[in-house]
């Protein structure tokens, strides 16, 4: 099965994904703010559907080039984590976040808060 997920090409935010060895890796680049939120919301929704359809064991989210995420985009990730938590245990996948807090300082506290919301699912790599 192949990944059926179109890249996100918003003016300030891009995203793309690949699948290798049962791991889906998605990369975000730019700024996730109010203007890009609808695109991000649609992209993450499709990402979740694809992760479920393909039976992924892990999704890697590369935020190292995400300059900023505002609160409404933060909620997109909260919603996603909640959806994964609501799956049956054997259908859940882990989410591993690649971050770069030395360049993007907001990531340290925001991602820590996000991982507390879904402590059994999320790991953060700095």
């Amino acid at each position, binding site marked *: 099965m192949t990944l059926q997920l179109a890249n996100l090409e918003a003016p300030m935010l891009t995203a793309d994904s690949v699948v290798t060895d049962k791991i889906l890796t998605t990369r975000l680049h730019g700024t996730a703010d109010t203007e890009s939120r609808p695109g991000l919301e649609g992209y993450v929704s499709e990402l979740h559907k694809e992760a479920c359809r393909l039976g992924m064991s892990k999704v890697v989210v590369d935020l190292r080039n995400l300059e900023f995420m505002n*609160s409404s985009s933060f909620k997109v990730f909260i919603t996603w984590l*909640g959806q994964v938590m609501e799956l049956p245990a054997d259908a859940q996948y882990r989410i591993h976040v690649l971050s770069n807090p030395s360049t993007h*300082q*907001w990531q340290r506290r*925001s991602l820590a*808060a996000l991982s*507390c*919301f879904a402590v059994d699912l999320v790991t953060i790599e700095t």
Partner: protein
Amino acid sequence: MNTAPYFHLVLQPDLGVVSTIRRFTNDLYQRVLDRELAGRLALATHEVLENAISYSNGRETELRIDIEGDEVNLRTWNHADPERIEAIKDGIDHLMAAADPDAYYQECISVSYQRTDGGSGLGLARIRNEADMSLSYEIDRDRVCIRATTKLVGGLRA
């Protein structure tokens, strides 16, 4: 003469400029402040300004950043409807009264997950928790001032 550094911006409410203003102010913060403090202030600037613009009734919105003594103050002013003013007062009162800010923030995140109206309700909570700033407000009829304050950690760079 007051020589304390400040920045004051008056704008027509437009969400499209918030990220631009965050980048601009972040550059200012990084130039004169401790790096960690600058990062917290950039997040707070984005959220407090976006909040002010989102809930403005269309008249001009203001952002002011002051370094006063050993504090940094971010202030926004907008004009808002009575329902929104009550929501702001209630939200800030609860944030500042929380005995355990981290636990309360996690409650806010859980509440946000349940919301289906498109909003997150997390802007001010992020300022309180992630940017580690205290919040207060002043109301004058329909004019709302929100102030976010933190200590000037590390002083000012020469």
